[in-house]
């Protein structure tokens, strides 16, 4: 009997207690945030301020209204002998509780308008950066500087699927963050390549939808160097949760150095594009690129997702003539989720990934696709 009771009550109780302690010990380490961040820009501060004003107004009204309600529920209950009165109208009271809230709202509209004007103040920017949403990564282009790169999730699939412990920066790390100079007004020109995404950096107070065919602008200016993490906030398919935004704000001198390095690297890359790669070099490089840029749809094992994304293993394209394969990867297939990778991947990466797809998972075409082949294909168009 006792044993049964123990099984019935103590075991679940123990589980709940264990859970609660797990949650609270977790809370100490991660310090769960409860409120909106104040952020580091004028806009994020304005959003925080108006948020707090609204929250306090709602709290005061809520305490008053619910306080009265609880008093009524206590004082006018039948069990305490309350006898119902029969009134059901009072013009003055009804007018009051229509007019007073209206006045409160009009007063609240003033700071709300001022704050919104700040959001839209995108004139006179020092730097323009084009932000393009792709399924499922971001592309940053420094307009007028000839610097352009993709920024993708760096967290490995093994951490996501629990085969490895999750790192400290789980889902908050990218291959290459956006780098901004401190103290400069940066204007973001935001658009989408395929579906709608939304580029959000909470600490900047910038959230703007990346809509295909539409450019919209937002801005940020901060004096505080540091790393700021954001997210994609518009449902964009199966990788929606896996395309974070990471921004590094650097001091001007560091930023200038970074920009110079980027340009030098691009120049160096251009000079080595004619290099002949070996079969194995391309396989190694190709696997890395594939798992980062292709496996989201076509799966790590090349089998795709039946009915949604086609398999590459034993596929007509991967086993057929290389020029068709180049066409699909470089140009994409219009009207489908297969996007053009011409602007997303370098010639080396495209060559490597095509090579990998033709020679992995039992595909054994055996040919070698060189970066220069990709370049020739692009130039022939």
């Amino acid at each position, binding site marked *: 009997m006792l044993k049964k009771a123990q099984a019935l009550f103590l075991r679940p109780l123990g589980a709940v207690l264990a*859970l609660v302690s797990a*949650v609270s010990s977790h809370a100490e380490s*991660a310090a*769960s*945030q*409860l*409120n909106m961040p104040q952020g580091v820009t004028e*806009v994020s501060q304005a*959003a925080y301020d108006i*948020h707090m004003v*609204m929250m306090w107004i*709602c709290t005061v*009204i*809520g305490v008053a*209204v619910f306080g009265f*309600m609880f008093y*009524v529920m206590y004082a*006018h209950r039948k069990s305490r002998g309350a*006898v*119902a*009165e029969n*009134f*059901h109208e*009072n013009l003055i*009271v*009804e007018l009051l509780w*229509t007019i007073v809230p*209206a006045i409160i*709202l009009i007063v609240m509209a003033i700071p*709300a*308008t001022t*704050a*919104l004007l*700040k*959001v*839209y103040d995108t004139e006179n920017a020092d730097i323009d950066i084009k932000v393009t949403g792709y399924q499922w990564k971001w592309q940053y282009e420094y307009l007028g500087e000839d610097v352009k790169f993709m920024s993708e999730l760096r967290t490995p699939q093994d951490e996501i699927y*629990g085969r490895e412990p*999750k790192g400290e920066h789980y*889902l*908050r790390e990218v291959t290459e963050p956006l780098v901004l100079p401190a103290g400069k007004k940066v204007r973001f020109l935001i658009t989408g390549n395929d579906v*709608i995404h*939304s580029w959000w950096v909470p600490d900047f*107070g910038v*959230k703007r*939808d990346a*809509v*295909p065919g*539409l450019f919209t602008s937002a801005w940020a200016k901060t004096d505080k160097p540091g790393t700021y*993490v954001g*997210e994609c*906030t518009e*449902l964009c398919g*199966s990788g*929606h*949760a*896996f395309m974070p935004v990471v921004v590094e704000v650097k001091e001007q001198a560091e930023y200038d150095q970074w920009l110079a390095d980027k340009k030098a690297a691009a120049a160096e890359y251009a000079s080595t594009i004619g290099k002949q790669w070996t079969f194995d070099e391309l396989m190694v490089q190709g696997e890395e690129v594939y798992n980062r840029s292709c496996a989201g749809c076509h799966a790590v094992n090349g089998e795709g997702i039946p*009915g*949604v994304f086609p398999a590459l293993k034993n596929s007509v394209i991967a086993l057929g003539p290389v020029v068709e394969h180049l066409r699909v990867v470089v140009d994409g297939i219009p009207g*489908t*989720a297969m996007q053009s990778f011409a602007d997303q991947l370098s010639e080396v990466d495209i060559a490597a990934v095509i090579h990998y797809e033709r020679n992995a998972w039992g595909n054994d075409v055996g040919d070698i696709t060189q970066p220069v082949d990709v370049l020739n294909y692009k130039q022939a168009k």
Partner: protein
Amino acid sequence: MAHGPATLADGWVKYASRWLFTTNHKDIGTLYLWFSFAMFILGGSFAMVIRAELFQPGMQLIKPEFFNQMTTMHGLVMVFGAIMPAFVGLANWLIPMMIGAPDMALPRMNNLSFWILPFAFAILVATLFMEGGGPNFGWTFYAPLSTTYAPDTVNYFIFGVHIMGASSIMGSINIIATVMNMRAPGMTYMKMPMFVWTWLITAFLLVAVMPVLAGAVTMMLMDINFGTSFFDAAGGGDPVLFQHIFWFFGHPEVYIIILPAFGVVSQIIPTFSRKPLFGYSSMVYATASIAFMSFIVWAHHMFTVGMPIAGELYFMYATMLIAVPTGVKVFNWITTMYKGSLTFETPMLFSIAFVILFTFGGFTGLMLSIAAADIQYHDTYFVVAHFHYVMVAGAVFSGTAAVYYWLPKWCGKMYDETMGKVQFWIAFIGFNITFMPQHFLGLAGMPRRYADYGLQFADWNMVSSIGAFMYGAAQILFLFNVVRTITHGKPVDKPEVWEGAEGLEWTVPTPAPYHTFEKPPQVK
């Protein structure tokens, strides 16, 4: 007809035929209610899958692709399958009895509008088992994710939405025709119970916006299959156009869900306060103004899309204004309780919880209306928390209250009060454990529709999931209580059932006979 409805004793063919071919408003109301409860359990089980996956960071149980199907189907099934049909069911049962009419004005159309619904949802749910999976683009199905990038099954989804829309439009026309033409002598408009008023206004909203939804999905159908480019930028179309059209439907839609809930609460609170509804006429005007305003605020769902500032300011001001008529309603409910003689039976508990939690959802709604702050709230869990406070604690709580309140009238038996109260407290506590932490998650930066999240969101997600399982369990208890009432409940035979209940439905015998008000009553 002299004889009563067929029962199981008459053989299953006759019994099945009764339900298939019925034109009786009570039978159709019952069908709607059971159907909506089945959909509620189905949509709820999708929610359980979502919360189970989000219990911990990382992908444990399902793939992101299926997660997206779950969030989409949860939304679609709950909005179109659970909440809307539940209130249509209540309307069918109650409106004729409340206005002293023998039945709905268009009984055959009534039968049709119900019986196409199971087909709509069979089609929709079947997509989960098809190659490519079910709709995975969110219940708001923004193009081009729902067009160019959608699985082929999207065509079934479009067909399903068309059928649901047809059902809703027919149901609404029926309600409008009934209320306008079949009121008993002396039942003037300003004497109608609030539930009838809120439904009349809701029906007009439905007739106005369901065709807009049909237009949106038809444009999708054309884009996908017939080479048009309404929403495809590459062909000269505009993805933002889709959002304008969708929300022109979508914003009135949320009031379509909540207005009948207002009506239910406006019936229940006076009964258990033993005092007439305070400010009846201002309630009617407030409902009408909320309905009107629902047409002019749609783009507040699109504050981050990059509208010109003039547009943002207009939609912000207009949205803030909705707080005025909504506030009037809340004040009226509380003043109805003031100096009443209150008792706290299960329907009253759910109604009071409705007032508190709906008002809480209203506060977050007001915060969301401030465009500059909405930049931070938009598409985060703050929004998820907000609309579950108004949809679940609003619509679902009031629906539950309605079932407990009118169930004795429907089946002539009293539910188990203790079990009802236990269910209430599990639901109330579970609901708040689920959704209160989602405010924190949203403010801290967790976007909605995320299959996986960073470690900083782990704690509150776990708490939220525990609450969700608790809330889910409360629904099983609800089902059990209702079934047990029907089979084993203590018989009630007083017509008024509740001390202090007012209205024509409480003047007919309990349980309500198959045909009521064959001779219209005289309303003074």
